């Protein structure tokens, strides 16, 4: 269970998060929606400790994340960055297998490579891409390599920052199914940011809407259409009319 209480974060006078309260129960899939620039990516980074919140508390299994042993804490997580963030000095398979090749109980290179190729298959990439460098891939392919890297070490908790942006509808469907499968079959806790309502419905157990630095609405995905919240309704319908301003 990941629990956020009154998490605040500002960059100079840009008050991005103004008191976020959110619970993500273990083994469930939480999808965060919200306008561009509302701080969704920052929120994920706060949980991982990549960005230090100004105030508030974040706990994982009732333990304050700032007090845990960092290595053990991070070993439980996988993260897909919005921009994929692949290491451009390493070939694709070493990117995917990066964690498997580090640390005390690292895998032999052969086994790690096999695992990387298997994960690449799961995100719809052929084994030929394994020896290419990230710069030789298209944006959508890089995104999927990032996804393969996030799931490669089979972590308990995985964050996906816009996993399907830049993908064609068919591939987006494959990725949605993959994320759903990881959650239901492997009991992973997933937190996904997406703007794609098809993805939301395919992936989410619960949905939370971030707006103006706070969680405006949260509830089960099945109640998304009868949330009674004007922000959520406007977001689903994609209308320019409503409480969310089009110019931000």
């Amino acid at each position, binding site marked *: 269970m990941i629990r956020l209480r009154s998490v605040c974060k500002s960059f100079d006078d840009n008050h991005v998060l103004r008191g976020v309260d959110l619970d993500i129960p273990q083994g469930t899939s939480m999808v965060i929606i919200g306008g561009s620039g509302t701080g969704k990516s920052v929120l994920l980074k706060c949980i991982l400790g*990549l960005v230090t919140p100004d105030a508030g508390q974040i706990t994982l299994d009732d333990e304050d994340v700032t007090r845990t042993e960092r290595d053990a804490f*991070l070993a439980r*997580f996988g993260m897909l*960055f919005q921009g994929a*963030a*692949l*290491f451009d000095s390493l070939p694709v398979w070493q990117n995917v297998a990066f*964690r498997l090749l580090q*640390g005390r109980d690292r895998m032999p290179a052969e086994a790690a490579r096999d695992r990387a190729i298997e994960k690449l298959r799961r995100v719809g990439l052929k084994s030929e891409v394994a020896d290419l460098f990230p710069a030789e891939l298209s944006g959508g392919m890089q995104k999927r390599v990032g996804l393969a890297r996030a799931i490669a070490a089979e972590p308990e908790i995985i964050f996906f920052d816009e996993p399907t942006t830049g993908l064609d509808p068919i591939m987006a469907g494959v990725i949605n199914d993959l994320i759903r499968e990881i959650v239901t079959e492997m009991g992973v806790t997933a937190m996904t940011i997406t703007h794609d309502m098809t993805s939301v419905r395919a992936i989410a157990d619960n949905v939370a809407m971030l707006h103006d630095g706070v969680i405006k609405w949260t509830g089960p995905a099945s109640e998304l259409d009868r949330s009674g919240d004007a922000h959520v309704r406007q977001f689903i319908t994609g209308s320019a009319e409503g409480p969310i301003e089009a110019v931000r």
Partner: protein
Amino acid sequence: MSSLTAPLGALGRASLGGLGFVGRVTLFALAALSHVLRPPFYAREFGQALVNIGWLSLPVVGLTAIFTGGALALQIYAGGARFNAEAVVPQIVAVGMVRELGPVLVGLMIAARVTSSIAAEIATMKVTEQIDALVTLSTDPLKYLVAPRVLAALLVVPVLVAVGDLIGIFGGYALATGSLGFNAAAYLNNTINFLEATDIISSLVKGCAFGGLAALMGCYFGMHSGRGAQGVGRATKYAVEAAAVLILAANFLLTGVFFSL
């Protein structure tokens, strides 16, 4: 009143800023060096750094040194002629190259070539979230990116300096024997007999210090890069400036230390 104190305030802020910078860089350097000593070691990163900083810098070091050695011989010859002391060319070329010009020029070339590339590479990794990705993959960027580069520079720049010293001396030798009429065997003898162990030690110590500074500045400014392409550009510029100035300042201090010995 405020117009009187404003310059003082600016001066105070600037000195505080400067002190803060020195403090942050020192802490960064200590952290990086502590990672050099503690496992895990990233052998592959270290090997790549050795090749990039050492092997691939040889051409630029060699060219810098040979032209400098030649020009130095000419200058000393011309200057020495004013008081009939042309014969000191081999001795002064040797001392000038080994104690001063070899280390400083190699240091500055490393600042231009290595500091800039380290800063740009790490800054790009920072702005594209690769540094964040490293952290989430339980890898300390200080250990994975900084420590191998700093260690490689500490070890390999003294070697580059030694190579630069030798090639510089050879440049002087080639010019002096080729166009100033010096006897080859006598030139070499004079050079070898004149140089002392402390000359060579000071050269290598300087190389070690300059290499460490060059790599540290690249890493520090890269890791603290601002956002976007502009951030990368700025990080690179500041890194090279800082490395060059610190190398010259360290040269001044170290020369003082070796003189007082």
